[in-house]
């Protein structure tokens, strides 16, 4: 019995034909596998390898190279919080601390008790003008504040159906800068 469902495996088997060489299908295939279980198990990677006629070690080698492939359970909603320089200058470390407290975890990768949340610190997300930023559920959350984090968590704990948000198009930077935060000195 396989870990991946037959329709996913079928989709994976069709991928190689879409590329000039079949090997390019490995990342899209791992994507599909990860989407199904939320993360990649050794079995799932072997099944991907078999479906693509590749060596399981090769597929695992690819999966372990890229940060968006997860080899451990990650929770339904993952906070990818940028702490590179531009975000750190605008308070990203405080944001990380707040996220940890709000979802009740002590370290990156740890699942919240309800299994809904986890976080990790990531490198530059390419939205430095909106620092501090994070990626959550395939969207960027910008100009983060503790209040914004709280409301994002609350919405996910008690979801209410909402229309898809439009963003990005023709969007200009508002002249007003977000309130300034500093890492507080203790002691």
């Amino acid at each position, binding site marked *: 019995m396989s870990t991946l469902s037959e329709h996913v495996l079928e989709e994976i088997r069709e991928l190689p034909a879409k590329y*000039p060489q079949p090997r390019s299908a490995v990342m899209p295939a791992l994507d599909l596998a990860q989407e199904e279980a939320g993360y990649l198990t050794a079995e799932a990677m072997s099944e991907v390898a078999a479906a693509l006629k590749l060596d399981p070690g090769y597929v695992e080698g690819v999966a372990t190279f*890229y940060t968006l492939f997860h080899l451990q359970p990650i929770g339904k909603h993952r906070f990818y919080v940028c702490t*590179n320089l531009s975000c750190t200058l605008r308070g990203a470390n405080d944001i990380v601390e707040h996220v940890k407290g709000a979802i009740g975890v002590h370290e990156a990768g740890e699942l919240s008790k309800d299994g809904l949340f986890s976080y990790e610190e990531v490198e530059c997300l*390419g939205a430095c003008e909106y620092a501090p930023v994070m990626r959550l559920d395939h969207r960027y959350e910008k100009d983060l504040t503790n209040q914004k984090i709280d409301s994002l968590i609350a919405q996910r704990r008690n979801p209410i159906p909402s229309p898809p948000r439009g963003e990005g198009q023709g969007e200009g930077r508002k002249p007003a800068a977000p309130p300034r935060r*500093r890492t507080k*000195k203790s002691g």
Partner: protein
Amino acid sequence: MAEQRGTVGGPVLTEWFATKDLHKLDVYESLGGYSAARKVFKEMTAAQVIDEVKGSGLRGRGGADFPTATKWSFVPKDHPGPKYIVVNADESEPGSAKDRYLMENSPHMLVEGAMIASFAIGGHQAWIYIRGEYDLPYEMLRDAIAEAHAKGYLGEHPFGTDYPMDVRLYRGHGAYICGEETALLESLEGKRAQPRSRPPFPAVKGAWGMPTAVNNVETLSTVPWIIRHGGAEYAKRGTEKAKGTRMVTVSGDVQKPGNYEIEIGVTYRHVIEELAGGPYPGRTIKVFWPGGSSAKVLPGSMLDTSTDLDGLKALGTMGGSGGIIVMDDSHCVVKAAARLLRFYAFESCGKCTPCRVGGNWAVRTYERILAGEGSQIELGILERVSDGLQNGRCLCGLGDAAGWVIESTMRHFHDEYEEHSLHNVCSVEAALVNA
């Protein structure tokens, strides 16, 4: 210092950005979009396209600053098999967000640019390699490509011609190194993204072993304008040798962080103080990274430096990918450098020894210094590691960039390094606490 010719014309890339729904094909087209591709496919030869772009003086905006037309002309004309344009949309340079901004506002501009570039090298397929975190730009490009197919601009007979053209998307999965063009090609081929030894260069043996030109998002997004208005018109903008306009992202300690299109040759003072609103009241700019975290830092006293690309090279730094990171006097340079070294060490692909080992040496040394365990020895280690990462000792530019962060911050802010290493003092924090 290069002459500054001032603003001679309006914006190029952001010309239509105030228009609502620019991401939709009919809106883009109503303003003149796809007229350049139509002209190229119906009326021009590949050589004419390359000449026009050559006349514009356009240089690559991904960081390497290489003349675009020259890069295209390296792709062999008589190659019998497929040839590819690969679009580097893996924007990951700390401080740089301009490619995301361009794709989110005007995805068709990139699609059109990729079509024209493909035509110029005699290729029929362009691959946009976009970083995995860019969900929204990916979706917008996917929709734009579908629209272009539906309209017949992509497919077997673009604009009624017999020149088949397709633009495809490939998603990255989180690795800074994929911004390096040969690592990107490896990734596109379904491998671990480790840079290749050169030669052979991608123009000869690139994606899937075929001749390939790898171009940045902003570079290709500029091309339709050049075709519409002529290379000579574009060349009126900018400095004598570094022509045109470019996007910059200003981030960090400024009041109006954002993406701005500037004419090359304006000063950093203009960009940081006029466009980005300058520092917060009561603060002064201590240091800035003029072109992404990989560009050697310049101290705040050099704000009058021109954005001229050649002038920056003469100063030993670069305009890079246009990511201007500004830091004011309330932040510590040693801590900032330590953070960036953590980044370079983490993102090292591990293929070449100086980068794999050097980055971690630097990180551990910074950790000792910031833990109050520094000494003259640590400063010596940083200097040696910095040297060991530079000057062609690494397979690609990632190692050099890591070395430049150490070298340039130590050169301009040696006092802060000595305070931390020898006396375990951070005068920046002390000032904040006492304020």
